């Protein structure tokens, strides 16, 4: 045999002998796939544009607030806050904009492109599908609402006159803000899925 000669190998088919998750693994996989889709991961930059521009917009108040605190930290004037943690939770109009963009993108293509029969041929129930979609949207809403809050808290902590005093004075926000944001995210996610499920056109679902 000539060892220097090239060879073409038919690798054939290898049966899968690894582990298989059950229904729970399938639901989590659907949550991950929906989050990836909504944020435009593994898709063109155009799909990433809208969600991350919105993330930038909702982060601006925190950046300005911390920036002002940093600039005025040694001026002797009283602390000036343009937005409080409570106000930030209530930036619901921005959250609604998130829902209008994210929910249709997560729900409508499955119907319009007839992907549902393939999904329901997997180890999933109908309720699992709804649960996964609500979970995916709620996760994104929570992350996009909570990240600016974290930025605001950490920034204020660093530019405050006494970090320990600021921490103890504002310790209650450490549980109040996540709970409030989670409840709001879940509420908007359920609302978004319910509206988006009524149509297979993204633009109509977004307007709804």
């Amino acid at each position, binding site marked *: 045999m000539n060892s220097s000669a090239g060879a073409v190998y038919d690798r054939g088919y290898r049966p899968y002998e690894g582990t298989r998750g059950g229904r729970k693994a399938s639901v989590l996989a659907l949550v991950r796939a929906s989050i990836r889709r909504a944020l435009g991961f593994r898709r063109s930059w155009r799909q990433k544009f809208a969600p991350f521009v919105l993330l930038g917009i909702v982060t601006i108040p925190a950046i300005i607030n911390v920036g002002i605190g940093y600039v005025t930290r040694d001026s002797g004037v009283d602390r000036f806050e343009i937005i409080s943690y409570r106000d930030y939770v209530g930036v619901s109009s921005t959250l609604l904009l998130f829902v209008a963009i994210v929910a249709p993108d997560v729900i409508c293509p499955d119907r319009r492109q007839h992907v549902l029969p*393939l999904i329901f041929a997997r180890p999933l129930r109908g309720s699992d599908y709804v649960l996964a979609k609500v979970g995916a949207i709620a996760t994104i809403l929570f992350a996009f609402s909570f990240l600016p809050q974290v930025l605001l808290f950490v920034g204020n902590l660093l530019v405050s006159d006494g970090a320990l005093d600021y921490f103890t004075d504002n310790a209650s926000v450490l549980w109040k803000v996540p709970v409030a944001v989670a409840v709001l995210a879940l509420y908007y996610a359920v609302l978004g899925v319910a509206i988006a499920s009524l149509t297979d056109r993204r633009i109509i679902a977004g307007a709804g």
Partner: protein
Amino acid sequence: MTAEVLLRLEHVTKRYGSFTALDDFSVDVPRGLTGLVGANGAGKTTTFRLVLGIARPTAGTVSFAGHDVAADPIPIRARLGYMPEHDCLPLDQSAADVVATFAELSGLPSRAARQRASDVLDLVGLDEARFRPIGGFSTGMRQRAKLAQAIVADPELVLLDEPTAGLDPMGREEMLQLIARLGEFGISVLMSTHLLDDVQQVCSHVVMIDSGRLVVSGATTELLDSGGVVTIDVGTDSERLVGALRQRGVEARSDGSIVEVATDEAGLDIVRDTIDDEGLSLFRLSTSAASLADVFVRRAGGDS
């Protein structure tokens, strides 16, 4: 030796309102490659929906590997693959991403899913196109991507709904070769089609269905052996031979001096004995192999 039964439908009836899609349908599907043949609206897709547990039978039982599908379809779906007839893939995602996602939805861990997606896309001939969006694929490439997602989780049985629909002759041939290879890999196939040539080419077992009722089920070779046509030339005595054959229970028809008999080996003996008993002069006797289309037309026609 009887092949192991993988899928069993027992007296299955499925009604949608007043429409009966399947009517007391009973059949055993063995391991290997099986064709589910019937005209449009015969009940093929309904059969798939029942096997996947997406729909429940109005009456009767569907069991996969001995397990009642309607009782708990979830673990059974993990052992099945499904390729629908229509377009069903997200057009703005790459083939690699879509196939890996469906592998994860079947329960495979993320890393294994990506590896399997790469392997099966290579297998179906989409290795170089796997990072392109499916929206830019030709019909043949989309069919291959659909097949890839159906087999990515290494199912025991894959349900293929009209897998050659819309393909040009070359694409059809390549798809049939791929399907034939699945059998070599140990994946059983239930392929629905109304193209009998496709079944004859790749399937070792055939289930024929018409208006929701079973026409016939059996090994492809046995059905073909049973469906031959004997052509006999007895000169001017053709009508006499037809009459004599009908008296012996063999259906025959004459066309001038030619008599045609659709029969099997046993029937051939009767033809020979009849000619001998009647003292007819035999000028020519020839047999021609039947196609599955002949078998379907004869059996479905006989039933109706």
